[in-house]
């Protein structure tokens, strides 16, 4: 029997070796990936129990961990919560963090790879580990001006620096107070979160980067860029100028926004069409260009790709398959074209920056508790979208549009503002989406701004971009230029 017993002993030994191996694999080799899993609430609890680093705007904390007398040790507080909520997000007890709290969670909680030695050091010296400080690019004056200008409308304002891609303001309305979601009471957090979730205004959505709307006429900037870059068209290229235009292969007709022809005459130039924001000439231009050429340019601007600021930005869409009728509609930003506010801000910023699109960025610097920099963000080129000449031509056309065209309500005395309005149709009977995108001063652009007003600005299908969105842009630009 002993020979068999020996064999059984070996089997038992192998069973235990298998257990030793499996526990080693889980606890050592898979430990990192398991800890990084979004469903791992232990990691979340841990990130709550350390003194998270603050998030600073111009040196002032907008998110701060203060000592608390409970098991979580620290309470996260947000000053001026609703104003900065789209940027900070929040870190709840019983769910996943959002905003920068999510995007830079490892840095803020001191668990990023770069902070490994700090952590070990804290462990050995018996100090509590602290997270890194995050300095954002937001300009508090621009942020406040955008907040005030948007008033009670549903929508967002994004202001950026064309030469660097730094985001100076990102406002989303309606907003919420993140402090409600960081109290140390699970039930209270769940209740607050549920009521925000059920709110018809969807306050939890960051409309600067997370809401996709049809861009309407602001998308004409992309189409004209494609036309000029193709070399086949100039601002003076002409198109037939009918009052109605039947879509190829369809019974549907396109009309210009005011009805009638585009500024009179049998033909109309691209410059006039853009200035007056006419649909029919753009539809004709779109058909001549073809959807491939438009898509190529749109993708250079950032459409159809994922990027982050480091907040994850929803993917703006120029559809991959379009027939002729859809191509014509897409040329003035309808059919299934969708864009975020930031995406349109990038279009303006690229034109303002001589055709060079800079990577949009929300964070200047991440600093360890001992003040050594962990990450410093330098301006980066994302794409050369167009030649400086094309950019200059477009700028002139956009200045004309504000000066005496369809975007006249963004006019500021003494400053050349370049801009383009948009009034996009949603489903039948639904309110329009209103846009303004542009930059100032036109000759030396310091600020690119995009205003999104959802839900027709409360005016259903009677509001339009120049009526509601352009004045908001004007108010913000005045505030930042005159400061």
């Amino acid at each position, binding site marked *: *029997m*002993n*020979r*068999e*017993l020996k*064999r*059984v*002993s070996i089997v*038992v*030994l192998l*069973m*235990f070796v*298998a*257990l*030793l191996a*499996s*526990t*080693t*694999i*889980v*606890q*050592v080799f*898979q*430990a*990192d990936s*398991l*800890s990084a*899993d979004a*469903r*791992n*609430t*232990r*990691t979340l*609890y841990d990130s709550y129990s350390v003194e998270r680093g603050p998030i600073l705007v111009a040196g002032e904390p907008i998110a701060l961990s203060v000592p608390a007398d409970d098991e979580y040790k620290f309470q996260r507080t947000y000053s001026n919560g609703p104003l900065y909520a789209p940027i900070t997000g929040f870190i709840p007890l019983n769910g996943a963090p959002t905003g920068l709290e999510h995007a830079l969670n490892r840095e803020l909680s001191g668990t990023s790879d770069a902070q490994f030695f700090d952590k070990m050091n804290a462990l050995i010296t018996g100090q509590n580990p602290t997270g890194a400080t995050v300095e954002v690019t937001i300009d508090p004056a621009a942020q406040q001006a955008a907040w005030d200008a948007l008033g009670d409308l549903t929508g967002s304002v994004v202001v950026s620096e064309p030469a660097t891609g730094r985001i100076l303001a990102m406002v989303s309305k309606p907003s919420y107070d993140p402090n409600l979601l960081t109290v140390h009471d699970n039930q209270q957090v769940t209740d607050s979160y549920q009521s925000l979730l059920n709110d018809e205004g969807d306050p939890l959505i960051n409309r600067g980067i997370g809401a996709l709307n049809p861009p309407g006429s602001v998308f004409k900037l992309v189409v004209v860029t494609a036309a000029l870059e193709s070399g086949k068209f100039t601002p003076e290229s002409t198109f037939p100028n009918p009052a109605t235009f039947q879509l190829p292969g369809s019974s549907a007709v396109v009309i210009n926004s005011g009805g009638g022809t585009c500024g009179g005459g049998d033909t109309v130039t691209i410059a006039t069409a853009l200035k007056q924001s006419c649909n029919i000439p753009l539809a004709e231009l779109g058909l001549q260009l073809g959807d491939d050429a438009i898509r190529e340019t749109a993708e250079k601007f950032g459409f159809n790709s994922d990027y982050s600021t480091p907040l994850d930005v929803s993917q703006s869409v120029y559809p991959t398959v379009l027939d002729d009728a859809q191509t014509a509609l897409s040329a003035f930003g309808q059919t299934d074209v969708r864009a975020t506010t930031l995406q349109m801000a990038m279009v303006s910023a690229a034109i303002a920056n001589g055709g060079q699109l800079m990577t949009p960025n929300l964070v200047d610097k991440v600093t360890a508790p001992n003040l050594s920099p962990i990450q410093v963000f330098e301006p980066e080129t994302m794409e050369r979208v167009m030649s400086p000449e094309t950019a200059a031509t477009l700028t002139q056309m956009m200045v004309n549009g504000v000066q005496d065209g369809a975007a006249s309500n963004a006019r500021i005395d003494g400053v050349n503002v370049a801009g383009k309005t948009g009034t996009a149709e949603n489903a039948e009977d639904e309110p329009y989406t209103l846009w303004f995108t542009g930059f100032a001063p036109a000759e030396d652009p310091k600020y690119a701004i995009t205003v999104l007003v959802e839900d027709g600005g409360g005016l259903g299908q009677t509001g339009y971009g120049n009526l509601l969105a352009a004045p908001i842009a004007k108010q913000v630009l005045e505030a930042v230029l005159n400061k």
Partner: protein
Amino acid sequence: MPASSNRSTTTDAPERPLGTGRVRRLHLPQKLRNLELFLLLLACGINAATVVLVQLGALGRIDTTLVLLGAGLSVLVLALHVVLRVVAREADPFILPIATLLNGLGIAMIYRIDLANEEYGWASASVRQTAWSALAIGCAIAVILIIRNHRVLFRYTYVAGFVGVALLLLPLVPGLGREVSGARVWIGVGSFATFQPGEIAKIALAVFFAGYLVRNRDSLSMVGKKILWMRFPRLRDLGPILVVWALSMSVIIFQRDLGTALLYFGLFLVMLYLATGRLSWVLLGMSLFLGGALIASQTLDYVNGRFQNWLDALNPDVYGADGGSYQLVQGLFGLAKGGLIGTGLGQGRPEITPVPQSDYIIASLGEELGLAGIFAILALYLLLVARGFRIGFAGNDDFGKLLGVGLSFVIALQCFIVIGGVTRVIPLTGLTTPFLAAGGSSLIANWIIVAVLLRLSDTVRNQPRLVV
């Protein structure tokens, strides 16, 4: 029983001529028992320290209630030690300290989870576990005292078999059986599920298998047809294995308990192999069981679900499904959190994982004690099993050998099924981790196994060549 009746009169050194081996033995210091006492005190010390560390980690202060309860248990274990000094002085000195240490670690971790869930007094699992431990150690003392010679058990082979099967089927009796989280393996009175008779059944079945195989192994091993290099049994000798197989399958189907079925079948196969020395039995048995399990995984939802959870645990669909891998993945998160050295007792968050004090106690321990702690625990189990196997190697009567090895193998296999399930070596099935997990029936069964192993090891050392 010549040997044991001799030993029961050892209190005074009788006036006998020198030179008879027995007298000299009486004067020998009890080296084994002294070693056991030393190890036992060490184990009790570690257990007390563990409880204190849990309190310091989770509460930040020391609370004497559970320490006192633990001291009570230590007294009981020492009583068992004293009993051994009298009635089984040559018993293995490692078995009792290891069981004590594992039991204590389990109570400390259960207590730690009680603290997290803010449960105190009789509502808390740790106090109940302590009470069950006391009862279990009491049972062990009784077994040691009553069974002075294990060969008595040989006489009751078929009674044991009947009792084993009856216990196994008891939860299926309407009105008596209770279903807990899908498995119908409990019996209870009123609304309380109180006892898992299957845990006790494994001892009865081990006794039955050992007795039956010793009686019948010749016919099972000698005759048969040789196919290729292997001798396969005759059709008519397939009876026993088919019966046990059918029993296991019925456990899978009617009690919905994969783990128990695997445990019994594995036990039977190993004992069958030991008794007959025929690999063909193992192959035959394994293909029978795997075939059955395969069919079950195709036809029974819960078995299919277990396999899915095992193979694709991190898939969001499987994770979110009802009866999906949520618990398994939470356990993995806990283990990952523990890493190499653990968070320290009382410093982790084992309570996040569902049932962290029973099926998942090993994940809880892994979180707070780390890989180092798990390795230590596995080493303790391995040592315990090795001491049991030692009986098999050193023993001279086949019944004792088979019984000792069978009971030790049950502990090893149970560890493998539970810990392997938690760490994704095999699909997860509900079984208790011996000595550690919360659960009275499991404690009682395992302490009885300890008592039987102690008795067997004493016999082995004491009567090296007497019993044939």
